[in-house]
């Protein structure tokens, strides 16, 4: 009797021990995140000012603001979405709604997944070779946007496919049974229902685009360019690259350190804001879908 009581207690202790470890690690994740955020906020908040957000960099980027880099990142996000959204969504619609199960479809899916695994610096090299040199765009917003667009394409395709797959077939059948064509069914039933989840793919890609450095290194980013672009064939500064420059190869790395933290803070804040905005959009659309 007492023996079985003991095993019971040991079991209980083991259980507690396991729970403790799980809890510890999950707390660690939160702690790491908070530490990084606090570190950036404490060091970066000092330099944040109206002039920092809206001014041009001055004195070898040790003083002044980061306005051109903010604008540049913003333009690159928009530009890459303009490319990746239609291409990604249309291609996902084709593979998910039109293609029959075949080796060809599996091949396309495999290639899409492989695309997601390519290091971003390779995209940068490819973008330089194709957009900057072969197509002759030069270092420009359009070359950078397209390169970033290629990079996020797999994310958009995969999330769109998941969104389409999650729509129960009974809705498609219901539409076909009323004499709707495939195109009508996709446009009027499937896409509106999948739309809130397709937005998720966009959120993910915006986060990635605004933080990527390697793909813009050879395709668009300017080391120092204290003015705003006039056309899509101009170069721009961008936040992640600016951060890299003033931390490693600026005129005076030590003196521009506070500027680097300020830049990091702005970058994080932008990603956070976009996420919040996109989530609000998604909620808005999921409500709208039911009412339509």
């Amino acid at each position, binding site marked *: 009797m007492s023996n079985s009581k003991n095993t019971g207690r040991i079991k209980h202790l083991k259980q507690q021990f396991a729970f403790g470890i799980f809890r510890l690690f999950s707390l660690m994740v939160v702690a790491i995140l908070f530490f990084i955020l606090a570190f950036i906020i404490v060091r970066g908040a000092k330099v944040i000012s109206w002039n920092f957000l809206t001014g041009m960099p001055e004195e070898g980027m040790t003083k002044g603001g980061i306005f051109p880099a903010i604008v540049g990142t913003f333009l690159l996000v928009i530009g890459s979405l303009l490319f990746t959204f239609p291409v990604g969504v249309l291609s996902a619609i084709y593979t998910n709604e039109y293609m029959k199960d075949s080796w060809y479809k599996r091949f396309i899916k495999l290639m899409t997944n492989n695309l997601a695994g390519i290091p971003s610096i390779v995209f940068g090299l490819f973008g330089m070779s194709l957009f900057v040199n072969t197509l002759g765009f030069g270092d420009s917003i359009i070359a950078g946007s397209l390169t970033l667009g290629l990079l996020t394409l797999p994310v958009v395709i995969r999330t769109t496919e998941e969104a389409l797959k999650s729509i129960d077939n009974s809705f498609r059948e219901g539409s076909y*049974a009323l*004499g709707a064509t495939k195109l009508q069914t996709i446009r009027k039933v499937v896409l509106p229902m999948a739309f809130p989840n397709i937005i998720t793919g966009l959120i993910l890609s915006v986060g990635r685009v605004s933080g990527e450095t390697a793909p813009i290194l050879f395709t668009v980013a300017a080391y120092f360019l204290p003015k705003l672009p006039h056309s899509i064939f101009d170069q721009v500064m961008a936040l992640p690259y600016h951060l890299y420059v003033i931390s490693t190869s600026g005129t005076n790395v030590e003196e521009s350190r506070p500027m680097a933290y300020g830049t990091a803070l702005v970058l994080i804040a932008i990603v956070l804001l976009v996420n919040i905005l996109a989530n609000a959009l998604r909620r808005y659309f999921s409500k709208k879908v*039911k009412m339509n």
Partner: protein
Amino acid sequence: MSLIIETKDVNLYYGDFHALKGISMEMQPNTVTAFIGPSGCGKSTYLRLFNRMNDLIDAVKITGTINIDGKNVYEKGVDIVELRRKVGMVFQKPNPFPKTIFENIAYGLRVNGVGDKHFIEDRVERSLKQAALWEEVKDKLKKSAFELSGGQQQRLCIARALAIEPTILLMDEPASALDPISTSKIEELIHELKKNYTILIVTHNMQQAARVSDATAFFYLGNLVEFGTTKDIFTHPNDIKTQNYITGRFG
């Protein structure tokens, strides 16, 4: 108005699986024909031949002829969209679109090119009345169809099918997901609709088949075991398998 439906030696394969084995049958206009049989016997697959719903599944092969008013619906060049407008369908699980009640009914008209606002409004009202749902929803046509109960949703789906004025109505276990009260409403509706439509219905419920249908077909393992008037099938079936099934000895 309503048309004779007949199938001659129809075989259907899902890949290597022989799901329907040489089915030949004839169904009369303005009658209700029930397809009964245990799960996997092929009755739903058979029903889905008439509006070519099986086309949506990869690797399906169909042989034989399925005639509606003397025309083979599987012939080359048949307009599937036109066929589905003529042969409406109600599914097992209510599947209204995530749109308003009004737009759910209007959908079928809109995709078929009807744009006239008054025409659509009239047709929506008429279809909802035909489906015995008008009184319950007339004040909330702009509300989401998802706010309706399961039984109301199913009647909405029936109204949606009726709105495009089909001549044949396919019903795939339309009451299996519903409570008894909703079920009896749907059954009353079937009686009413029979006057204007030819109805083919798949059901798991023997009493329902006996109550609503004029003719009954018993399917087993892809074969049509027995087909006759509902009265004959339920009172003195010829085949021992039919008798065992309807008396609940297997299923």
